[in-house]
């Protein structure tokens, strides 16, 4: 689906692919104060995971996808809630 900047967070919903990478990075750069919301994330492309590793935003919500929730998100960011 898409990556959107909303008032409270950058929201990643549905299948987030490599084509979102550039705009996602621009958002992270412009609003380092905003958390990212992964509640509705169905798939997260490696390029986006890499950007999260680097910018270390606060993460809110947990994706329903077992692989991401179990293996990826916990290691992404110590500040994640």
């Amino acid at each position, binding site marked *: 689906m898409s990556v959107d900047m909303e008032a409270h967070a950058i929201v990643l919903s549905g299948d987030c692919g490599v084509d979102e*990478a550039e705009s996602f990075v621009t958002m992270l750069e412009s609003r380092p104060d905003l958390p990212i919301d992964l509640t509705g994330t169905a798939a997260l492309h490696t*390029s986006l*995971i890499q950007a999260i*590793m680097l910018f270390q935003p606060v993460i809110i919500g947990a994706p329903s996808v077992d*692989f991401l929730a179990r293996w990826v998100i916990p290691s992404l960011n110590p500040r994640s809630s």
Partner: protein
Amino acid sequence: MDELMAQFRIEARELVQQSSEDLIALEREPSDRSRLESVFRSIHTLKGSVGLFDFQALHQVLHCAEDLLSGARDGSIDVDLSLIDPLLAVVDWIDGIIDPIAETARLSEQQVIVANSLLGALQKVIAAPIQTAPALLAESIPQWASDFQAKMRDQTPCADGLVAIAYTPHPECFFNGDDPFATMAHVPGLRHLTFSLNEPLASRADFDPFRCNLVLRAIAEGPLDRIQAVFRLLPDQVRLFELASQAPLSPAMEPSTASQAAGADRNAVLLRIDAARIDALVEIAGELVAAKNGLLPLAGRARESGDDALARQIFASQSEIERLVNALYGAVTQARMVPVDQTFRRFARLVRETAARHGKAIELVIEGEATEADRNVVEALFEPLLHLVRNAIDHGVEAEADRLAASKRARARLLLRARQRGDRIEIEVSDDGRGMDPARVRAAAVAKGLLTSDQAQAMTDLESLQLVFAPGFSTARVVSDLSGRGVGLDAVKTAIHKLSGSLEMTSELGTGTSFVLRLPVSFSMSQLMVVEVGRERYGVPLEDIVETHRLAAADIRSIRAGQAFVLRQQTVPLLYLSDLLRLERPVAPTADLKVLIVRSGDDRVGVAVDTLADRAETLTRPLGGLLEGMHGILGTTLLGDGRVLLVLNMEELIG
């Protein structure tokens, strides 16, 4: 050139040499795992050294070569000629540019162009479709995996064992549609996953979202083939390690750390020392040998003055010092010893190339390469051996068709073998080629006017073959007419003689030719006979002296202007050392003469001296400065009493 660059030059040479040797060995035996590991290590280390300098194009080539070898190690690239040839081309090229680039500290434009074309050739190998199913399986288990395994020990074991996965996605992988995490999500039975940046970024400004800069490490439940299936399209980016379930923790290390550790180990036992420093030690030790002899006369004087106790003490210290000095001398000499391997290994590539140029298949067999000899001997061996090996390939070995017609193996065998025989090293160069025909050698020698046909007829076959060593025997025309060889064999023999060695040849028509070189293991110490003429003393190398002879004045025959005597039914010319040295000759001899019988070419010559003093084991130093190259003098040495002794070169004096 700065020190770092000088070091690079030395190291690069060694690494290139090692790589080339390993690659040639791999060509013969593609399954030789240790050679593959060795060439990988060499290229890896070389890449590291090159990285210290501004040799970017070279670095890229080595990087690519390393990737290829890494692929060969994990089985994703086949070890065959399509891999070895471009790698050898790279190694050859580097061999040729080490010196120039070490001088200028940069690559010339020309060199960059060559580098790029080599890089292209290497990349073609990577791009080639993989024929066999990717094995992906690496041998040693990385540290992180064994750490994890240790933590897992009290958990439920997995029936099919565990597999450690190290996945370093290609930086450009996103453009190929790869999504490394999605791939990882497909791994069945995941037990553990960590990931991190592959290379730390200097700043976020450097971040390129479309470039993958990650390392993923995982542990999953076997069986292995299920996991291999997931990564089958990414063999070059993934390495799998099978962890035995419940296996005791092994101290295995990641290959790169393992090789570093091995390198560190080597550093601990090997020290690179400037040869000049060792030489200085050898000299000092040699002088000590002489100096300790000075104690003996002291003891004698103590005894003469009636102090027996002091004399005994001096004797005791003298023998103790003698023992220690000899041990010291032995140890320092040992430090100059190197294995002949250094010289031998240079032939692997040479034989391969020369044979290919002549369209002949030749197998080089090297034996006894660990045999050691003095560094100078080993270095000096190369030229003569080069002659012999080239000759063997050029002339000794027949064309393949001729070999088959003679019921021989199509592939010829060239043997290079070293052995130690007492204080000499024996090196054999033999081929199983066509051998030499004594009749043709005789005919060629007669045609060259070296001897008359009558003389030739009187020769045995064995003697005839030795004609190939005669100066002037070999000219290009004769050699090409003749089935055998002969190119500069007299030059080879002369070179070996200069090293105080000998060269012998045997050859059998149809079965091959064999050369045997015999050289002293070490030059440093030589045995001298000390002789007196008038009031002077001189040293004569013992190896020059066949025997000593006491000659009654009455037995001297005058022949024209010269003198001679008969020794065992042979007339031997008699010379006087005093004449040879242009000293005053003592009045006509009345008593018996002391005569040294010395070799002069194939003949023997008697050289009369006044007194045969003692023998001495000393270190002869070549003349330096103004005296350098002085006719008839080999060098100087110190005697126990501190006097300098001139060592004579008998061959020069007589000739």
